[in-house]
């Protein structure tokens, strides 16, 4: 049984006292089934005597039945929890295992190593202090070794053990081991992992797991268990530890048993706090002083990162769940726009611009994620262009929150710099991320910009936007036909707007005359307005003589291909002049109007309009039907 020692039998009180002061180490093991990862963990459990006799009996029975180690015990069978996984022979999720030695209690996050399980590895790594990477001595540093290394460095694990396993299958060769060390170290430096320890082991045979291997006298480092027992973590004296950093405590719960007591309950995630310390409550920025540190076991003189406490303040300031209480002299930053690494964890892909929820610390806010700047190929570490993120993909994205939150960059504090993404509909956790930095104002992305665009508006309208541009001589019947077309479209539920000389010349363009320069400017402005309305999702009916091909081209180019339908209302000059509904031809002929199209200014006939209406052959009603049909043919309306 565990902790076999004379002390248990002779001095149980002394034994228990000594075990009260054990520290806790959480580590993750990375590797695939082929690397012998499950065997290694099973071996650690077995060697630390955490396998009980009835488990052992079960293990012997299972090993004989489905084991892969012949007559030897198959330690991997100790671990595979769910029936379905046992049948498949692979672990498909994160499992947590526990064992303890004389010095430490250990929590192992056991995750499978396949590429599609990035989600699980990231989950297991998020709470780990140390990562144990399995490398098969026969195969050396593989793609998956690089992948695992990248993921553990991404999650901020600084201490890495490379367990070069299956040394028994390479004749315990020092040369093989050295080659792997050199190769791995070169790669590790590239991704900023510098605290790497190499240990040659055989999980199956037990070499260098607990006892130094007699088969590898050339290795003078510590055994794997020895390393795990002694590696310093959570060291308050280390400069980079959160315990040495500034005080941080997210408010979880406001503790008000009666009117005389108002405390803020939370778990300290950075630094140390003492009564009398100045604090600042973010995001509000209010300040006060710590009055008491209250626990059921009595008030404390100080509390450190990792402890759950209740703090009272000297002043009656407002603080509530989600706020972050910080050291007064070293507060966290507050921002609503960030760059972050995002890991997508759900089968439904990330949709840029879609509103999600984000939980950071104890605060939940609305978030919109922009198109990824790039995604990272976890195998090659290449940066690839991406429009979205799918399950198990990792990208760098800008985030826009619906209100400001306090935070620290992830590399400074894993708890104040991490977040999860929650789907608003299913309430599932669909992603997770690590904040890098707040965006400067010039980099701001706008909540509205990413949320609603032309396509979104078109989707809501159930038709595509577009411009129907009517061109032709004065009196050709453009406006008559355009009005009938608008009525017909309106009946169909299409959102329209009619631009013509009457509503443009009197307002927007009243400063313009009829010189060629003014005609061009007139059409430029109308083109711009049409373009905006198309962006707004509407169908614009523009009815202007627009005699020059170049300016009609300007209007066409303002919108996308397929959105512009040019209608040439083709009426012979004689007929138009005969109609002369506004008496303009008469005035022009009399010399009272200059630059009148058809009289003393040219009309450039369109060479290939989308629709040509010969008004000498067609009624206005028939012409309108023909134009509506043309819009339907082009898929602009349904």
């Amino acid at each position, binding site marked *: 049984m565990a902790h076999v020692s004379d002390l248990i039998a002779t001095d149980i009180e002394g034994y228990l006292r000594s075990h009260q002061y054990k520290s806790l180490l959480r580590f993750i093991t990375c590797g695939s089934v082929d690397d012998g990862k499950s065997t290694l963990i099973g071996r650690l459990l077995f060697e630390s005597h955490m396998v009980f006799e009835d488990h052992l009996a079960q293990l012997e029975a299972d090993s004989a039945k489905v084991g892969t180690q012949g007559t030897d015990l198959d330690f991997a069978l100790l671990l595979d929890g769910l029936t379905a996984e046992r049948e498949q022979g692979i672990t498909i999720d994160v499992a947590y295992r526990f064992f303890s030695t004389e010095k430490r209690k250990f929590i192992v996050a056991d995750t499978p190593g396949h590429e599609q399980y990035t989600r699980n590895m990231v989950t297991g790594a998020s709470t780990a202090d140390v990562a144990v990477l399995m490398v098969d001595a026969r195969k050396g540093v593989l793609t998956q070794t690089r992948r695992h290394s990248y993921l553990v460095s991404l999650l901020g694990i600084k201490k890495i053990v490379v367990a070069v396993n299956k040394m028994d299958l390479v004749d315990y060769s020092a040369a093989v081991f050295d080659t792997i060390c050199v190769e791995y170290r070169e790669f590790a430096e590239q991704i900023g992992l510098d605290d790497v320890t190499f240990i040659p082991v055989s999980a199956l045979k037990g070499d260098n797991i607990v006892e130094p291997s007699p088969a590898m006298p050339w290795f003078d480092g510590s055994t794997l268990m020895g390393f795990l027992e002694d590696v310093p973590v959570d060291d308050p004296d280390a400069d980079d530890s959160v315990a040495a950093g500034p005080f941080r405590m997210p408010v979880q719960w406001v503790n008000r048993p009666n009117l005389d007591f108002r405390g803020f309950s939370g778990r300290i995630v950075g630094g140390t706090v003492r009564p009398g310390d100045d604090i600042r409550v973010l995001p509000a920025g209010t300040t006060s002083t710590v009055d008491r540190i209250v626990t059921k076991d009595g008030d404390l003189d100080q509390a450190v990162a990792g402890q759950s406490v209740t703090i009272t303040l000297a002043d009656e300031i407002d603080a509530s*769940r989600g706020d972050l209480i910080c050291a007064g002299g070293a507060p966290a930053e507050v921002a609503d726009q960030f760059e972050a690494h995002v890991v997508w964890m759900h089968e439904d892909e990330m949709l840029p611009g879609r509103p999600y929820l984000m939980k950071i610390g104890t605060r939940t806010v609305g978030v919109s994620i922009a198109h990824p700047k790039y995604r990272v190929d976890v195998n090659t570490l290449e940066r690839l262009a991406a429009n979205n993120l799918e399950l198990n993909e990792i990208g760098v994205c800008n985030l826009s929150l619906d209100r400001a939150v306090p935070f620290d960059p992830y590399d400074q504090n894993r708890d104040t710099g991490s*977040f999860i993404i929650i789907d608003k509909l299913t309430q*599932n*956790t669909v992603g997770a991320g690590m904040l890098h930095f707040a965006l400067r104002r010039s980099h701001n992305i706008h909540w509205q910009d990413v949320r609603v665009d032309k396509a979104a508006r078109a989707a809501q309208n159930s038709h595509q936007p577009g411009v129907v541009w009517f061109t032709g001589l004065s009196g050709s019947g453009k406006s008559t036909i355009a009005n009938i077309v608008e009525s017909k479209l309106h009946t169909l539920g299409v959102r329209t707007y009619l631009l013509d000389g009457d509503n443009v010349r009197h307002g927007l363009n009243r400063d313009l005359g009829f010189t060629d320069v003014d005609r061009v400017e007139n059409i430029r402005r109308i083109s711009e307005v049409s373009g905006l309305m198309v962006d707004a999702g509407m169908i614009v009916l523009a009815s202007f003589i627009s005699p020059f091909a170049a300016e009609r081209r300007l209007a066409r180019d303002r919108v996308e291909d397929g959105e512009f339908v040019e209608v040439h209302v083709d009426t012979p000059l004689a007929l138009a002049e005969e109609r002369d509904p506004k008496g303009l031809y008469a005035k022009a002929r009399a010399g009272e109007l200059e630059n009148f199209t058809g009289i003393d200014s040219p009309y450039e006939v369109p060479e290939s309009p989308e629709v040509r209406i010969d008004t000498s052959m067609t009624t206005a009603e028939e012409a309108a039907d023909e134009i509506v049909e043309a819009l339907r043919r082009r898929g602009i309306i349904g």
Partner: protein
Amino acid sequence: MTATTTDELAENVSTARLTHLQRLEAEAIHIMREAVSESDNPAMLYSIGKDSSVMLHLAMKAFHPSRPPFPLVHVDTTWKFSEMYAFRDRTAKELGIDLVVHQNPDCIAQGINPFDHGSATHTDMWKTEGLKQAIDMNKFDLCFGGARRDEEKSRAKERIFSVRSPQHQWDPKRQRPELWQIYNARRSPGETLRVFPISNWTELDVWQYVHLEQIPIVPLYLAAPRPVVHRDGTLIMVDDDRFQLRDGEEPEIKNVRFRTLGCYPLSGAIESDADTLTGVVQEMLLATTSEREGRLIDTDSAGSMEKKKQEGYF
């Protein structure tokens, strides 16, 4: 090892560094506060066992000086040890905590008991169905449970915040990723949550904590002379006159204690002289059988706990 080294160990521990029990305690308190803050009508499932005692102790700490803002819910089978009922009522009264006791009315009507209906039916009807009824009737949206990941292989992958469907089903394939110490307590209409604050504790941690904190536990955990019969390779206590003796069975007084507590006809006792807490821990450390071996319901079939969980047990 001698007592001297023990003292040296203690001195070498920096005051600023937390021990594993302090970290586990702080984690459990954090989990309880998160759960309470993000639910409307939470409750704590209370089975009267040592894990429940630890949970309750942690809850008293988590919300101090307030009282825990939730009731204890005991899904009763009417077949617990009489000492357990006494302990339950005394504890709730002393701590001033609301106690909700639910007994499945269908079981009362049909007189379901482990002797006539077998352990599987008994457990399913009283506990699994009873728990669903208690949650539905009281409209609890979140229940704390005392399950630990080290208890059984299928538990090793259970989340701390675990979603149950409106039908109380657990789907191991649809578990939410759980990262850092950020817990997603949101749920869709009809869904409920089970939250396990002592997921990361082992049996040894629980015992050490009970010892360190002097937490009251049911006296049945300590050895005493009790009337028992040998049945199916284990010792069963004859706790009251409902016990159906088989031919040839004669209760005898033996010094026994219990490693786990449940319905008395289904809880195996072990012979022991350990009548103090340290004695129990000592025996446990030197023991060679794992905790759940004494609990008969686990041995029905391989993977039985996983099946029970999918059906809504726990």
